[in-house]
């Protein structure tokens, strides 16, 4: 194990002028005016001014080595002193992990309000600490943090924090008007540079204590608390990857506008945009070319408040040389993790070492999901199910969207259309298929709805603050105050006017520090809705208990859950979400502090509920909103995409970015959610999706015509059927890859550089980056995202390997660029030579029906060695015994001329075959 060491650099790098390549933005369909840009948000605007201040090169913070103290959770801390203050106010915490990671946190030593920290275990599990000792140099006053592997074998630096001295940390403060007059010289926010919100030149004081946007005013009784820092990726960095979720390219463009992380329900999102979407995993992957060596590294920014990240280059053409990113978040603590690599495999392993490993999904979750907004009745559901059977098309799961409910009170049924839901789902179960129902987190305000009553009575709803002005208790009447009195006019003939106190002493008015809290009410599907505080473990416990089969009537143990709208979506809220100044009763935390984790807590509560509902079963939850660590609980889809070729293509990059963020059970709605795809687009979308979407779902908007595979003309239907049959045939490969993900942290689907880091084409070849992606280490897929009228052939780049075989006809191709003539029956896809692919050739109506069928191994020989290798993983496909008891079969398959099968790598503890049989 390599361990990184931490030391403080010996020199301060001077910031060089940064030039950006400007982007021409496409015509808008999404309403940009609804969503904030960096410039429109006060903390990001302030931060931009902060980092362009002329005196930026001057070091501001000093790490005090003599203050080193061990941390209870491992690692150690230092106090950090601002150059313009006497006492240190910040605490820098360091953890060095054995897998090759450094975590650096900065927080306040004695904050005026609690700075929100994510509870331990929610995102970061405690990885094993460094085995090696840490050496740190006594070089106080230097504020560059460098990371490198420390075992002497690959000691070249690849990541630096604060190299451009952009650190900003705004401590909580008392509003100026509440400071006693004699304290002005001490705190002196107007005369001494402290941070972006306390700067002698008054960089930007707008929006410190309240901030209007889009007709809402964000009350900020706690004032500014943002933080920011820069990170530099050293060497020649051809491409950066990651930053899910954005509808952007795989090789992240260096936009003028920073990438935004603020989980939002964005209506009709656009492609090639840094705008925020539904979820946030703020991770950057970098490729560094260091001399003759190519390595990769990762950088993670753990903060659930609104976050912006700007990618920058030193060079005017925006290519080559090092790459930089600056980050700024609205509140919380500064929490970063550097994953030093050096291979993509180690970066992935380091990420999962930090955030935990994902669970094996049930095999059925990798099959075809059939969804629509909405199947309208029990009969409708039965018809869709039987039509799949009529044409012998495999599928595993049928879904119901919001219309199945009684007036959008989730956990209930529309009795007119679904009078007997239990029977309906049992009929699905009888065919060994599954059922997914939508349950959104907003709660209908309705006295008749038990969930509403119970959550309200328990006090679990997020609160709204009714701000009011009170007399400032700190403002006392000066001792020398002379009350102006009216002297009666002796000459008056009328009685004197009533004396109304004008001119008398009055205390200042300030916001009431303990204002009234009432349940926050927003507008969503059901009309007036309330939003539970899912950050509260007690609320999550309650929520989870609602999925019990005796509570959630009409469901059975084959029913799983879809959490939509969990950003949360609030139709009448600012930016269609919850106001930042809403209060979570759990710890009286402001919503701004936890916003990007709201969705995470919702789907986690659902997952834990399903776990309790059916002990031993593998839960399935689909979520739209997510955060770092969501992979432990939930599948993710890329939200409400469009039936457009551009969205088809973008899904390749979006899926790739999500898998680099640790989320492997991901996919986009096949065929697009909005609008209606023509037959060719539908076919192309399926052909791509069956090979690269781990989560394969067909979904459609209420207004669109039906688009189940069987509604098309026969040719189209047969093409879709062939695609789905190929998916089912390849399920053993998918399942084995998911085992690699769950056990060895390997993304199931990944950009080409992950497997072919030494092939520079995978860092910079446009086709290789944006049109192609790998399924495991064996299959390369090239998406076709144009109609045949515009594209008759595709240039496929096959990376350096011992050769490639077409998945469709077995034709052998040498590495390099190949022109591929297109037809409508397939898209280019190639198995890497030297791999053994596990398959099942009997295609049945669902994956469960295929569980006892024999395997087929396709062997794609390495032409030079005549050998091939592969893996096959088998368990009972649906329970947790693979984890709890270790009942599984994981084999390496080693095909050579002399030996056909390799050795069993994982021994089953009991008669595996018997268990597998009896469990079905």
């Amino acid at each position: 194990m390599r361990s990184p060491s931490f030391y403080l650099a010996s020199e301060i790098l001077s910031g060089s002028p940064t030039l950006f390549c400007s982007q021409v933005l496409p015509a808008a369909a999404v309403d940009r005016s609804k969503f904030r840009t960096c410039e429109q948000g006060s903390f990001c605007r302030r931060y931009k001014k902060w980092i362009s201040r002329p005196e930026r090169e001057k070091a501001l913070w000093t790490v005090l080595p003599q203050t080193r103290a061990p941390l209870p959770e491992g690692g150690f801390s230092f106090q950090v002193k601002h150059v313009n203050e006497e006492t240190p106010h910040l605490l820098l915490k360091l953890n060095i992990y054995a897998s090759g990671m450094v975590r650096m946190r900065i927080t306040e030593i004695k904050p005026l309000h609690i700075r929100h920290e994510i509870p331990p275990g929610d995102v970061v599990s405690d990885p094993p600490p460094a085995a090696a000792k840490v050496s740190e140099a006594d070089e106080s006053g230097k504020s560059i943090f460098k990371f490198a592997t420390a075992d002497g074998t690959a000691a070249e630096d690849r990541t630096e924090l604060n190299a451009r001295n952009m650190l900003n940390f705004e401590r909580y403060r008392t509003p100026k008007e509440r400071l006693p007059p004699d304290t002005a010289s001490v705190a002196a926010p107007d005369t001494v540079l402290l941070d972006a919100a306390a700067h002698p030149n008054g960089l930007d004081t707008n929006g410190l204590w309240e901030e209007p946007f889009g007709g809402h005013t964000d009350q900020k009784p706690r004032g500014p608390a943002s933080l920011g820092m820069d990170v530099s990726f050293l060497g020649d960095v051809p491409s950066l990857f990651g930053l899910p979720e954005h509808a952007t390219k795989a090789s992240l463009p260096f936009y003028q506008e920073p990438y935004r992380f603020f989980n939002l329900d964005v209506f009709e999102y656009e492609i090639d945009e840094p705008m925020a979407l539904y979820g946030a995993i703020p991770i950057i992957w970098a490729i560094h070319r260091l001399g003759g060596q190519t390595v990769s590294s990762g950088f993670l920014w753990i903060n659930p408040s609104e976050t912006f990240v700007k990618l920058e280059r030193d060079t005017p053409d925006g290519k080559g040389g090092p790459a930089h990113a600056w980050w700024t978040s609205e509140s919380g603590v500064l929490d970063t993790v550097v994953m030093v690599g050096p291979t993509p495999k180690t970066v992935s392993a380091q990420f999962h070492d930090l955030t935990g490993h994902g669970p094996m999904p049930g095999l059925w979750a990798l099959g075809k999901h059939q969804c629509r907004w909405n199947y309208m009745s029990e009969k409708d559901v039965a018809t869709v199910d039987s039509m799949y059977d009529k044409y012998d098309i495999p599928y595993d799961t049928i879904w119901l969207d919001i219309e199945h409910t009684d007036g959008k009170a989730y956990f209930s049924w529309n009795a007119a259309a679904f009078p007997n839901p239990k029977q309906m789902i049992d009929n699905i179960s009888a065919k060994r298929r599954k059922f997914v129902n939508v349950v959104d987190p907003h709660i209908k305000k309705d006295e008749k709805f038990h969930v509403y009553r119970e959550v309200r009575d328990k006090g679990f709803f997020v609160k709204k603050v009714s701000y009011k002005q009170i007399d400032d208790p700190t403002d006392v009447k000066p001792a020398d105050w002379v009350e102006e009195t009216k002297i009666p006019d002796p000459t008056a003939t009328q009685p004197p006017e009533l004396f109304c106190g004008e001119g008398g002493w009055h205390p200042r008015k300030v916001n009431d520090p303990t204002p009234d809290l009432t349940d926050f009410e927003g507008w969503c599907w059901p009309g007036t809705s309330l939003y539970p505080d899912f950050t509260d473990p007690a609320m999550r416990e309650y929520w989870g208990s609602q999925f019990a089969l005796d509570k959630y009537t009409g469901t059975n143990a084959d029913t799983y859950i879809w959490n939509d709208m969990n950003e949360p979506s609030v139709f009448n809220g600012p930016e269609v979400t919850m106001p930042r100044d809403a209060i979570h009763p759990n710890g009286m935390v402001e919503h701004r502090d936890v916003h990007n984790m709201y969705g995470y807590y919702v789907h986690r509560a659902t997952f834990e509920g399903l776990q309790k509902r059916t002990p031993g079963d593998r839960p399935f939850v689909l979520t739209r909103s997510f955060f770092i660590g969501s992979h432990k609980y939930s599948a993710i889809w890329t939200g409400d995409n469009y039936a457009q070729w551009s969205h088809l293509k973008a899904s390749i990059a979006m899926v790739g970015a999500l898998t680099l963020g640790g989320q492997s059970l991901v996919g986009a709605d096949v065929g697009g959610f909005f609008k209606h795809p023509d037959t060719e687009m539908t076919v192309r979308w399926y052909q791509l999706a069956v090979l690269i979407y781990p989560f394969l779902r067909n979904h459609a908007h209420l207004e669109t015509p039906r688009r189940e595979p069987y509604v098309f003309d026969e040719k189209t239907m047969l093409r879709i059927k062939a695609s789905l049959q190929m998916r089912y045939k390849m399920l053993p490969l998918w399942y084995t890859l998911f085992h690699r993900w769950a056990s060895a942290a390997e993304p199931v689907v990944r950009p080409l550089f992950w497997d072919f880091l030494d092939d520079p084409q995978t860092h910079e070849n446009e086709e290789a980056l944006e049109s192609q992606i790998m399924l495991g280490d064996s299959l390369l897929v090239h998406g076709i995202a144009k109609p045949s009228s515009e594209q008759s052939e595709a240039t496929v780049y096959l990376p350096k390997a011992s050769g490639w075989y077409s998945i469709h006809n077995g034709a052998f191709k040498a590495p390099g660029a190949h022109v591929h003539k297109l037809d409508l029956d397939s898209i280019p896809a190639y198995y890497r030579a030297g791999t053994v692919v596990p398959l099942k050739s009997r295609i049945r109506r669902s994956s469960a029906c295929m569980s006892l069928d024999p395997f087929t191994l396709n062997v794609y020989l390495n032409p030079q060695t005549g050998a091939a290798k592969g893996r096959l993983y088998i368990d009972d496909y649906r329970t947790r015994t693979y984890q709890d008891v270790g009942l599984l079969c994981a084999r390496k398959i080693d095909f050579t001329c002399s030996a056909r099968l390799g050795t069993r790598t994982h021994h089953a503890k009991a008669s595996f075959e018997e268990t597998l049989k009896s469990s079905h």
Partner: protein
Amino acid sequence: MRFVVFCILLGIDEFQAWPLGAHFGDLSKHTQAFEASSLGLPFQCLDGSVTLLSSDVNDNFCDCPDGSDEPSTAACAGLSNLGFYCRNLGSAPKWLYASRVNDGVCDCCDGSDEPPSGCPSSCDKEGPAVLARLKARQQEVRQGQLLRRQYEDEGLQQVVHWTEEKERLAADVADLMTVQVGDAQSSPDRAFVGCSSTSTAPFYTNGHDKEQRKDVSEYTRWALPVSETGPHRSSQSVECWVGEFINAESFCCDASQGPQGRQECWDEVYTFQSCCKTWQRQVLPTFERQSWSTSESVSPERRFEPKSSKSVSREMRQTKGRLFSLESKLRAVERSHRWFYLADTCLTRQTHRRHTELSIPGASSERVDFKLCLFGDVRFGSVNYGSFDGWDGEHGLRYSRGQHCPGGPARSLKICLLCGAETELLDIAEVSLCAYEAAVKTPGACELSNLEELADDLEKVIDRPLMPLDSS
């Protein structure tokens, strides 16, 4: 390069005597091939592509590209359309896809598609019910078939009669026109206003709202019609259109032509009137310069009264009404004169609004009349779901240009006619936003093939054919 791995062979039950799952009734070639293989001779795949050793047949490994070598196993699942035949003695036999064999789901009542003891045999139990169902259906189809023949005979006469009457009435109208035009030279063609789904763009009352909706989230958009900021729904559901028109009464009939004839037509005037009020409020200011004079106090039918001899006018009105009704009837028999019996038929069914009217957020679950006039209009409560728009295949009817859904497309409906002894409305469902489908049973849809298929099915249940190699 494909071979079966025995890492864990969790396979199919061992090879059984091959009649299981094979059916030879219609596939003599298949029979011969299997007979040959049972004698140890080579087996030729049905598509002729490959010749196999006899031991390769039903050996739980798919050799033929068409899947024909494995009638008893699932080895060719997903590949073969030849399938597996369950004999289901005592009940109806059944063809299955090979993918259903040994998949853990009992598809055959005799359990033959799953390993022995995998499924309890239920043919004895379900057989009588299947038989009863088939017989009842046969009875129904026979009745329907008889009625259909009767309608075919009667239809011929009826259509001739209608055609003659139509010509006569058309001549009458022409005559009356001459009189009327002479009487009322000064009365120009009028612009009229009426209720319809085919709104013309400038008067589309939702135009502005549509613009607004662009700005809001998907969800806001759906919530809008009932939110306090959104337009009130009832004002959305009434749309007005303007066109050139001569006679108000026949417009009214056009909008509501139904089997009840003129009475229904007059009933519609109420809707017309309310619509006009909406129209006046919303559209009038931009339309006043048109040659349309109106007085608030005058009722619509009076407003359009031509200034001519009252008796001529009345006669004209009546004649035109009858003519219109005939034209509508004749449309019903465009395809085949046997459909004449449905020309005046309307079917009614009470159903929950929520069940079919998804597109109205927050609609109550009141029960509303769904009224389908087969060659006229479809109404659900007071909402027009479309008017007859032609045939869709042999047994399909299309209805289009219904009222627009709030913010959505114009409502439309497809009817599928099924064979039945009586005419009845079975189901109505919204398959996508404002697109509905319904099924109607009626004798005219009975085909000879229905009877033949049923007889076939019955025969299979009653007289089980002996299998050639059933002795094993």
